[in-house]
């Protein structure tokens, strides 16, 4: 049975880690109203590329940026399918996600010395102690790994990454392009009359959100020490639940920005999961628990926040 302090450590680190994913969903789901299922593939894509590049001794922070860009490209594909080929959002996500299963499998097998048929190598990529990850590289090395029994370094690094992502999104949403993105989610017709193509706005939004999902993948790999082909599973539920919990629990908290609420939401969601583990629920029940929690969040948010409740429309 894990200690109470240990459980707190887990939900805080996991909360910050998955809040990056949730911030992506804030853009795609909350702003653009696009339930994007492709993130399960892009998170894995990010984690996979990070693991391979870190093993090849590239700078881990640079590698996170590369993962962001790869994720963005995948997001552009989702956007392209929807905007240009007029495929429904849910199907676009499923298509890209499915394509990425192959891409990720082949990439990792080839990266680990196998062949292009996807054979003759491990599909799980370990990132052992000998490799420099974002936790074992500068400037994280300045932080203590152990502080009163808690892995303070991991906690602080993940907190900083989540905060930086949040601040960058806040900044972006204040730019002309960011405001156009918000307007696109709200009223496509209005955006069109301003001479903006709402389609390109959507593609930009999906690129950002999938980039963030890929960054989350790198954090998960850092935290677990390996990248395996199943690590993307459940990401949609985690991300969406976090956004919905954050925005509905802090619905009336006007002094918090939405992005802050989303981070809180992610921490609350992970806290619920950790608490269940602390109470002795076996980890095999995790996914069921995740989905049940998500259902509760969805139902309660229907009562607390009537969608766009403050407007007369």
């Amino acid at each position, binding site marked *: 049975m894990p200690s109470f302090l240990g459980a707190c450590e887990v939900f805080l680190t996991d909360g910050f880690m998955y809040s990056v994913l949730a911030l992506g969903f804030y853009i795609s789901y909350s702003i653009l109203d696009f339930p994007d299922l492709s993130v399960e593939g892009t998170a894995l894509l990010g984690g996979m590329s990070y693991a391979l590049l870190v093993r090849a001794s590239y700078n881990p922070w640079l590698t996170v940026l590369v993962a962001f860009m790869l994720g963005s490209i995948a997001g552009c594909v989702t956007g392209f399918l929807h905007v240009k080929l007029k495929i429904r959002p849910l199907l676009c996500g499923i298509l890209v996600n499915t394509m990425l299963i192959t891409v990720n499998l082949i990439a990792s097998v080839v990266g680990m010395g196998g062949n292009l048929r996807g054979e003759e190598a491990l599909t799980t990529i370990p990132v052992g102690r000998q490799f420099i990850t974002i936790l074992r590289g500068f400037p994280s090395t300045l932080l203590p790994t152990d502080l009163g029994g808690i892995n303070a370094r991991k906690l602080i690094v993940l907190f900083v990454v989540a905060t930086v992502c949040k601040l960058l999104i806040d900044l972006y949403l204040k*730019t*002309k392009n960011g*405001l156009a993105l*918000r307007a696109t*989610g709200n*009223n496509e*017709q209005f955006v*069109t009359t301003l001479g903006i193509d709402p389609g390109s706005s959507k593609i930009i939004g999906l690129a950002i959100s999938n980039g963030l999902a890929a960054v989350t993948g790198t954090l998960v790999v850092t935290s677990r020490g390996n990248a395996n082909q199943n690590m993307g599973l459940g990401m949609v539920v985690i991300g969406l639940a976090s956004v919905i919990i954050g925005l509905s629990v802090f619905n009336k908290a006007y002094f918090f920005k939405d992005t802050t609420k989303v981070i809180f939401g992610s921490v609350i969601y992970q806290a619920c999961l950790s608490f269940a583990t602390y109470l002795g629920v076996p980890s095999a029940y995790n996914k069921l628990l995740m989905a049940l929690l998500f259902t509760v969040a969805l139902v309660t948010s229907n009562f607390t926040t009537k969608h766009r409740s*403050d407007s007369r*429309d």
Partner: protein
Amino acid sequence: MIKFDNIQKSFGIGTPDEMQLFNGFNLEVSEGEFVSIVGSNGSGKTTLLNILCGSMLIEGGRLLLDGADITKLSEHERAKYLGRVFQDPQKGTCSDLTILENMALADNKNKKFGLGAAINKKRIDHYKELLEPCQMGLENRLGTLVGTLSGGQRQALALIISNMADIRLLVLDEHTAALDPKSSELVMELTTRFVKEHSITTLMVTHNLRYAVDHGSRLLMLDKGLIVLDRKGKEKEQTTVESVLHIFNEISIESGN
């Protein structure tokens, strides 16, 4: 200035309900004209505006703006030259954004939506000046979410916003139809003042015959895709609501409405 040249438009092509609305429709509007378009339901008024704005494709014909062919331009590309106010007050503005944010977006129309700051504080006084003439007190509520405004206030804002960038043509699509009588009067009055001040070429579709007669410099009546009445200048000034209503009724009886 704007020319509809031999426009062909049908609905439900390939189905038993196929219906041809425009068969070689022609219309030319000159610079500075304020055209009111009336007609019963299904006469093609709104379709005409949708064709102009690019929200509906046509099977044949051309659209010329200042002599340039704009037929192939997409809706958002054409929007560069057009300002549009819709019947639905929710369409012309963004409910989840504040008045200030809506105006800042409109202020940037036809410019690049890059990574510069969206709101330029130096422009705020200019926005207030634009809002003042509607006398709704909107100039003191720049931080208010547009979703909390009334329909009349939203239409007034949409009207101002539509013309913040240099546009060639203002398109009003039954923009008073969803308002209560008082707000409707107010918005119509604002519209006339606004069009005069900016001397902008305007196309207005309306169901209100009195608005069409009292406002604007040219009156068009459409029926089944044809122009059945076209009055401008002196002739338009002498037109009364009664005479227009008479023609309107005759058409309605013929078509069994």
